[in-house]
């Protein structure tokens, strides 16, 4: 009975959250990929993207969020982000440039720069997102 009451109590919050989450994710992607033109970039986008999962965790309970995005996946993503960034540098060396020299990625240096920055920002975004979610999981669930 008590249990039922508790779930009903947050009905409004739950529905509003469900409505909001897609837009938060979309905004995060916008910030990620529009960082070249406006304010934003991988770091901010990562935080906003993580915020969508964190609000889900706050409203629906961390256990539910863990089912959506398992902590194991998040942990792997943490390292994948750094890996993408570092690999971009190695790739540019294999193309004959210096480490993280994006000019060599395409015939036109500006296009190369564009690709390089895209890859690097993606790496930052992935790492920041997963670290933030991981922090939230750790703090919210460990019963000390």
């Amino acid at each position, binding site marked *: 009975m*008590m*249990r039922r009451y*508790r*779930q009903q109590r*947050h009905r409004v919050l739950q529905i509003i959250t469900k409505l909001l989450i897609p837009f938060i994710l979309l905004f995060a992607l916008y910030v990620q990929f529009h*960082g*070249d*033109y*406006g*304010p*934003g*970039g991988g770091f*901010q986008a990562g*935080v906003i993207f*993580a*915020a969508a999962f*964190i609000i889900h965790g*706050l*409203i629906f*309970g*961390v*256990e*539910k969020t*863990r*089912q959506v995005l*398992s*902590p*194991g996946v998040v942990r792997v993503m*943490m*390292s994948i*982000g*750094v890996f993408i*960034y*570092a690999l971009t540098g190695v790739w540019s060396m294999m193309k004959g440039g210096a*480490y*993280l020299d*994006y000019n060599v990625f395409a015939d036109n*240096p*500006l296009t190369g*720069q*564009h690709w*390089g*920055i895209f890859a*690097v*920002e993606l790496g*930052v975004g992935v*790492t*920041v997102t997963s*670290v*933030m979610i*991981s*922090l*939230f*999981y*750790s*703090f*919210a*669930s*460990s*019963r000390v």
Partner: protein
Amino acid sequence: MMIETLVIVVLLTFLIVCTIGIIVLRDLLAAVILLGMYSLIAAGIFIVMDAVDVAFTEAAVGAGISTILLLACLSHTSHVQKPQQHNNIWALIMVSLTGLLLLYGTMDMPGYGDANSPAQQHPELAQRFIHESGSEVGMPNVVTSVLASYRGYDTLGETVVVFAAGVAVLALLGLKRREGLEPEDDEPESGNRRVSRQVADGEQDRGNDGVANS
């Protein structure tokens, strides 16, 4: 210019009020909320100073995530700060002295927005970023060009720092269950726990976590 100064002064006053509130309040929940407000006001100041990217980060990280994380921490501990027993005069003196030294240090800094400051005049820094980044990197947002291209190494370092922070927290808090340290879950539900488990009462049995975790 006049209006800008006025806005900054008002916002800085808010900042000071917030800070005093944080120090004085014994209720930690209120202090955390004030901390979030502090970050939001700081973000406002950054916007007035035309540092939109910094403001964005401050609002997202300072006002958003860190407030949530602190609230999550509070859910593990009590909401009320213990009253201070001792009264350390030396600490006050040291803190005041350091503050004064820091203030003295700012005397040498160039004025806000000073176009003739060394950083603005350096031919390989601001001058080059502003004049050449369009043809060298091609991004309309110079901040992104500097962060991701000119200063690519630094940003790599920052990403590694974020990664290391995540690993450190996981090492301290996150991997407990794997060692079979099953957390007790039979404590009475108290208000403190609300943040982390608000609606989590529909919780599945905790055995699930172990699986999801490994």
